[in-house]
């Protein structure tokens, strides 16, 4: 098992590096760039624009930019000398040896081209809202999907099963942005029961994540939590409705297959009550494939829902990504992609390990 995990971790390294190379190349190859935001600014002279691009190193060839971002190249040198860090050792070696502190290899994600804020702290600030939103959404949609799938399978072709099928397909077919807007329109604008957007009531509290906010949170935590809770409802409902479909269908199919297995008949022949037959003997087996699925959905906790976060102006990773794309904020985007792809690879590994725990037949 340990050997297997180590092998998988080693395999993950080239995968993540490959992903960064491809995304970096594609991103920089796309037309437009960070300087575009000055397009309508009459006071921005071509010379000033050029200076801006030079300062951010955006005039360098793409491989050089990538090398600097990665920490392979020393940004203060040109040509071959760039491979060496300030101390004369190769730049990619740990800071203690090479003296270099730039790039991913040295734990430096750079600065946001748009705001100048360090990318690491910008992402960290967006992570908490996403974990809160995605965590609640994932919890509810899995809970509801599993229950719905199991009962639909047990009562196959019943009214409940058919209603669940219709609900699942309607949810599946409904575009996220449309559902989100409809919910905002109904509960936020018309009925005025729930806030329209954001994570906190900005008139009452400092912006979420700032130091002032945490001071405010410390003095009236209940009010603060209540406020966040109210803002959570609509985006969570949107995510749940849209995502239940796939998982509940999956659980239903898996449960149906399990219910037809010989060991379920054996369990019945032993005189076990239905509750035990379904929820001990069948469900345990039916959830085996679902475990893998859940493993693949865990990265969502971090990557967030781009569309939902944007519609509800939820200050999370999804919104950060969209804003990054809009502003050609390469460093932010690369930072998000880097962390996301690492989490996806890790979640895959975690799902495989979890599988070995729940299914005694699997040995690595």
């Amino acid at each position, binding site marked *: 098992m340990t050997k297997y995990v180590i092998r998988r971790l080693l395999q993950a390294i080239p995968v993540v590096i490959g992903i960064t190379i491809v995304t970096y190349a594609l991103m920089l190859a796309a037309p437009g760039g960070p300087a575009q935001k000055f397009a309508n600014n009459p006071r921005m002279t071509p010379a000033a624009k050029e200076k801006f691009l030079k300062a951010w190193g955006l005039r360098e060839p793409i491989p050089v930019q990538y090398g600097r971002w990665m920490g392979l190249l020393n940004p203060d040198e040109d040509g071959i000398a760039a491979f060496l860090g300030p101390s004369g050792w190769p730049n990619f070696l740990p800071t203690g040896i090479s003296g270099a502190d730039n790039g991913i290899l040295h734990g430096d994600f750079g600065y946001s081209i748009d705001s100048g804020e360090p990318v690491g702290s910008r992402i960290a600030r967006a992570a908490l809202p996403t974990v809160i939103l995605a965590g609640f959404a994932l919890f509810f949609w899995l809970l509801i999907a599993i229950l719905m799938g199991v009962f639909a*399978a*047990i*009562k*196959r072709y019943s009214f409940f099963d058919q209603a669940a099928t219709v609900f699942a397909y309607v949810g599946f077919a409904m575009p996220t942005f449309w559902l989100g807007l409809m919910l905002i329109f109904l509960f936020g604008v018309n009925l005025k029961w729930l806030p329209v957007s954001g994570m906190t009531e900005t008139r009452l509290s400092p912006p979420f994540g700032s130091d002032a906010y945490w001071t405010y949170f410390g003095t009236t935590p209940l009010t603060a939590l209540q406020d966040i809770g109210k803002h959570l409802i609509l985006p969570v409902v949107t995510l749940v409705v849209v995502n239940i479909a796939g998982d509940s269908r999956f659980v239903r199919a898996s449960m149906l297959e399990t*219910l037809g*297995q*010989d*060991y379920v*008949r*054996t*369990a*019945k*022949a*032993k*005189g*076990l*009550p*239905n509750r*035990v037959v379904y929820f001990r*003997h069948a469900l*345990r*087996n039916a959830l*085996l494939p679902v475990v893998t699925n859940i493993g693949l959905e865990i990265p969502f906790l971090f990557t967030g829902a781009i569309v939902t976060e944007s519609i509800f102006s939820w200050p999370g990773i999804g919104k950060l990504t969209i804003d990054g794309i809009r502003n050609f904020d390469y460093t932010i985007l690369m930072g998000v992609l880097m962390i996301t792809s690492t989490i996806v690879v890790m979640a895959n590994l975690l799902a495989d390990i979890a599988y070995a725990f*729940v*299914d*005694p*037949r699997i040995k690595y």
Partner: protein
Amino acid sequence: MTEVLAAPGPVGAPPDRDVLLEVRSLRTYFKVLDGIVPAVDDISFSLKRGQTLGIVGESGSGKSVTALTIMRLLDIPPASIGDGSEVWFDGREILSMPLDEMRKIRGNDAAMIFQEPLTSLNPVFTIGDQIAEQVELHLKIKKRAAMDRAIESLQLVGIPSPERRVKQYPHEMSGGMRQRVMIAMALSCEPKLLIADEPTTALDVTIQAQILELLKSIQQRTGSALLLITHDLGVVAEMVDNVIVMYTGQIVEQGTVHEVLLEPRDPYTMGLLESIPSVEKRGGRLSAIKGVVPSPFNLPPACRFEPRCPYAWDRCRTVPPDLNRVGSGGHLARCHLHTSEGAGRLPDALQRHRTALNLGRTLPTGGH
């Protein structure tokens, strides 16, 4: 997966005390896309306490469905049970019983062993858990005591070092071992009736013999009744006192194992016996029953074996044969040869059967 059972109406009087299982005019149907298929068509038989009964038939003869109906393990719908069907077990009618009552019988007084030892055990629980769970439920004892009981039953079925085996998962065992586990599980609550549905079909020949030997010795030791379902006449010959032969959901012959295997009186049984390879028939050609089992949607109008029967004549195509008494005891055969109309043809048929058995020659078929 509903298990609602329409009560099959008012029931008759219970059978004698010494009869453990009595099945009366049992009919089981399946609703399929094209209509309703009668899988079990008016079957009656009884099994005394401690005795053994074999049900023989090809696949599709309704023998497994009979067993599943008795255990009430069929999903209703698509299955349905005909009005007037009765199954008496240990003095109680069990088809009309609430399912909760039936669950107290299942695995406790009546246990069942299935054909596929590889898939009949739950892959994610240990052997010990799976046996103990049943013991805990029926004998109402603590988990610890139930686990001890599980170890005892594994010992009973000849599994070495059972203390270690209870902690294993099914996939860590061979097919033969798993079938022993299934038997141990079935016996764990000392059932009065053990139903074994093709218990050895999925196993190697050598393992088959061991498992049969085990079943027989345990049945004799514990005194439980055995209902053995198989397609294998050889298994029947070794294991049971009485035999029922089924064809397309009906009983076609019924009697002691001696009567049915040595003096068969139904052409279908005769055909089955003729198609068994044996030492005496060495050199001769093996005769098989010609044709195939008819589709349940398209059964012959009168005698259902008529298209394949070498002795059929006009009457067989117009009048459905009854189960006729043959000889003096309880030997029955569903064939017109045993009525006054067919009596004249009987000696010839028996002669041809004997010839086929001795010489193994395929005989020209008559009656067509």
